[in-house]
């Protein structure tokens, strides 16, 4: 049981860790000051959530690892985040499309987790859901604004959607870890979140005048850790560099 719970908590924490890192890459380079501040806010929330999820993962594992140890001392094959969140930022449109596609899943996942049989999971979900409600609202407004903006912004948002849609399906695929979570009442069946997700994104794409790609093919291998994209390794070389170069130091 503790093995699968550890695995599940790493999935939650690695999603927020990797996406938080990606979003933080924007700091001081955003299109306008207000967006710079909003992106930093989102990254800050996600990093805070990471600490909660990964500290709990470390506690469940019982091997003396805390959130920092898990974040900075694991290699690519030990990461359990969705492939979607490790995709590079691209332009601002791609960043915000990735955020929207993730937030729409993240909020419904957290909402379900608020009823988790595990009280600590429920508490983290409750705290996080307040922040993610705002993330989803902002990402929705931005996707609509840019989708239904100028010809150029529309074309860029459609390109971003086409580029990222193949990474959406992974959020709803189940494996043995999910089965164990469903059986113990800790987390919902991933597939059960799909209908509401599809309805929500369809509404937003309609308002944004964007077309959802016909093909629902889904890349997988992120949340199982079996096959990440090439991007994650490069991200880790930067993120983990100080910890790896000076392993005996405290910061």
């Amino acid at each position, binding site marked *: 049981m503790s093995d699968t719970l550890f695995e599940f908590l790493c999935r939650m924490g690695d999603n927020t860790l990797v996406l938080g890192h990606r979003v933080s890459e924007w700091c001081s380079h955003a299109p306008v000051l207000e967006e710079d501040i909003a992106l930093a806010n989102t990254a800050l929330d996600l990093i805070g959530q990471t600490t909660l999820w990964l500290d709990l993962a470390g506690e469940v594992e019982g091997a003396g690892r805390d959130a920092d140890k898990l974040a900075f001392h694991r290699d690519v094959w030990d990461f359990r985040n969705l492939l979607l969140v490790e995709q590079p930022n691209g332009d601002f449109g791609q960043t915000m499309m990735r955020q929207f596609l993730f937030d729409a899943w993240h909020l419904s996942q957290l909402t379900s987790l608020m009823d988790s049989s595990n009280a600590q999971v429920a508490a983290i979900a409750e705290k996080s859901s307040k922040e993610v409600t705002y993330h989803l609202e902002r990402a929705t407004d931005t996707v609509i604004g840019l989708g239904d903006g100028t010809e150029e912004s529309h074309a860029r948002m459609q390109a971003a959607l086409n580029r990222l849609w193949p990474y959406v399906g992974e959020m709803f695929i189940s494996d043995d870890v999910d089965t164990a979570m469903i059986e113990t009442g800790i987390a919902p069946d991933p597939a059960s979140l799909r209908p509401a997700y599809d309805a929500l994104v369809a509404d937003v794409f309609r308002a944004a005048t964007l077309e959802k790609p016909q093909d629902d093919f889904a890349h997988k291998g992120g949340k199982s850790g079996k096959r990440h994209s090439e991007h994650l390794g490069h991200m880790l070389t930067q993120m983990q560099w100080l910890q790896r170069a000076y392993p005996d*130091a405290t910061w």
Partner: protein
Amino acid sequence: MYAQMIKSTGEGVKSLEDMEPQERAFQERINAGGKIEPKDWMPDGYRKNLIRQIGQHAHSEIVGQLPEGNWITRAPTLERKAILLAKVQDEAGHGLYLYCAAETLGVSRDQLTRDLLSGKMKYSSIFNYPTLTWADMGAVGWLVDGAAIMNQVPLQRTSYGPYARAMVRICKEESFHQRQGFDIMMKMAKGTDAQKKMAQDALNRFWGPALMMFGPSDENSVHSAQSMAWKIKMNSNDELRQKFVDECVPQAQYLGLTVPDPELKWNEERGHYDFTQPDWDEFFDVLMGNGPCNTERLEARNKAWDDGAWVRDGLMAHAAKKRAAKLAAE
């Protein structure tokens, strides 16, 4: 400082007797500690000077995001990453209120941004130095934010209301920034040999540039005299620099670090530390665009602005469509 080498109208300070009644009433209000508000009458020189000063301060906050932003993706722990991100975000916020304060004087944020991007307006010389190790995040917080606070605390009493009020909030956040910088320095200075070496190296590189932040001696400057009469500059550059040195030296000693100045010693008679002036030739080189990072800093700001053009245009176009639809529905 964040606003260095601000030139005023430069005609020398007029006496009250030489002023027309309107200007005299304005100056008397300032002398009595009153505030000037956006809709009040003010001399052209006062308005122009403030636009330059507040604009330069705002630009410094925005360009100042870059040297620290440089380490966000390499921060060594989740907590340090969050703190640094929050700090750089605060700087964007400071830029935002300062641009708003400048807008009350009749200049737009877009105009000020264009003047920054074209190189017409300046920002503080300090941000043209590179951040090379994690200890630089400590040194920047401790020394750079420390120097900024020296200047900004008195500016909370500056004569222009919107500027003074922006400064109250900024100072609160800056003092948190300085503490977090010192906290990083403490960890580094008490850490492994490699960390101590990084801390000393950061102090060696940032000490001179931090002293330069106050600007060259302005004892005989007509510009400074006018700004001081208007209470938009509250202390002389030398006075603030001395205060900064007097405060930092014991802090460096506490950290077990050596201030890179062989002439530094306590002067019992003056009740201050004697210290070596920074390299003013280097300062003027940086100001002329030849600092280690001037080109990269402006390139980064220009790239962010240019790459973001389609986003700003897209969102404006959407807002216009929504307004039109709302009108049509009414």
